[in-house]
């Protein structure tokens, strides 16, 4: 016996319209997606590329994606878990790591399209706003897709954006959201931005902890200390990583062979015969149980 009147009647469920699957999962913002994918009809089948940046708890994902009716096509991808290959093993989700991932993706795409000699991009990361200058062949254009992230000033998404811009991609942007943009003076402080690109803010925190709370410094930055990276080595480390990325951005194939059978993520649909047989078995079981009850009584 319910205390209150049931709120969700059968009628409620009958009229309920579910949102799209990816909206229910909270993964896709369809309003933004429609506007990013919509290509001018008088450009017919020309693909429109999105520079997608997503953050997980331990990884940064940067991809170049174009959309078709059959599904989205990932042209190139870069993950921050590839950065150990270039010499960066710790701090894989900070602003500087996002910059490195964006840079890696940009160089990878340009190398794939054989445009990497033409568009070197900004070799020395100074933190200033840099836009690609078009040469004979027009630059590779993509649109930034942030997903569901709140675009505040200094967000790591814009770190990845800066990496891609310095790598040589043409992505329409404004410097308003880079770390170091001051709302009062309405200007990007390139020095501050450069600090963030080379994880200067991390180095600062390391210095503060070293002075005030050495035990916390030991626990918090244990991985850095294990590799002998102190607050002064951070800057040099990232310079080397940038150079290594520009030297060889090609993706490395994993050694794993493709599995013989594709892994199923949902249960397979039963055939009509199987379902009918299951029903017959269930009815038989019910009947035999009912007979037993009758016999007992």
């Amino acid at each position, binding site marked *: 016996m319910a205390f209150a009147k049931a709120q969700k009647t059968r009628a409620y469920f009958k009229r*309920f319209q579910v949102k799209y699957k990816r909206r229910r999962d909270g993964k896709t913002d369809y*309003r933004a997606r*429609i506007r990013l*994918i919509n290509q001018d*009809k*008088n450009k*017919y089948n020309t693909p429109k590329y999105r520079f997608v940046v997503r953050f997980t708890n331990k990884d940064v994902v940067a991809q170049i994606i174009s959309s*078709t009716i059959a599904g989205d096509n990932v042209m190139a991808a870069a993950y921050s878990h590839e950065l150990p290959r270039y010499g960066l093993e710790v701090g894989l989700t900070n602003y500087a790591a996002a910059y490195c991932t964006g840079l890696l993706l940009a160089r990878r795409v340009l190398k794939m399209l054989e445009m990497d000699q033409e568009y070197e991009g900004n070799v020395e990361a100074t933190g200033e706003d840099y836009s690609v200058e078009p040469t004979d062949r027009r630059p590779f254009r993509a649109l930034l897709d942030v997903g569901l992230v709140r675009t505040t000033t200094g967000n790591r998404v814009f770190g990845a954006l800066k990496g891609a811009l310095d790598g040589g991609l043409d992505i329409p942007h404004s410097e308003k959201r880079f770390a170091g943009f001051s709302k009062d003076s309405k200007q990007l402080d390139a020095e501050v931005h450069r600090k963030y690109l080379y994880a200067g803010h991390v180095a600062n925190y390391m210095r503060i902890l070293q002075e005030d709370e050495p035990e916390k410094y030991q626990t918090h930055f244990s991985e850095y200390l294990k590799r002998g990276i102190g607050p002064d080595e951070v800057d040099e480390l990232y310079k080397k990583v940038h150079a290594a990325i520009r030297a060889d951005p090609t993706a490395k194939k994993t050694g794993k062979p493709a599995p013989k059978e594709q892994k199923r993520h949902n249960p397979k649909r039963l055939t009509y015969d199987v379902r009918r047989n299951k029903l017959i078995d269930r009815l038989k079981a019910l009947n035999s149980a009912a007979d037993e009850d009758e016999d007992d009584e």
Partner: protein
Amino acid sequence: MPAGHGLRSRTRDSFSRPFRKRGYIPLTTYLRTFKVGDYVDVKVNGAVHKGMPHKFYHGRTGRVWNVTKRAVGVEMNKQVGGRIIRKRIHVRIEHVIPSRCTEELRLRKKKNDELKAAAKARGEVISTKRQPEGPKPGFMVEGATLETVTPIPYDVTNDLKGGY
């Protein structure tokens, strides 16, 4: 109060979204491409207010004559008074579906080309013309028994219902 003959009058049902299909429209509508000369059906999507055609064109099929940034130009016939005019309208992508009216023809053309090529290889001449359905063939009726029905003489007592 008089009825009113505004632009969207009498469109309460035709422009409304179907049951449980309101809200964002699926992305395929935006990903489709249209070329000049394609046949398209005009079907108004009430969720998108821009670039809506007039209610007359809802359910009509026409050919694409122009492609712009977010819309296509469609031309179709309209009877005005005693004559038929060829009308050209511009409609946004969301209100247009690729028509399947020529699908059957295209498939048949492809199949006929294949059949003709195969016949040519064998050296025979075949006709790929469609034939209308003829009269059904004759058949023998199986398992029929003959039952002769004759009228019976009229009996007053049978017909009287209830008491007599």
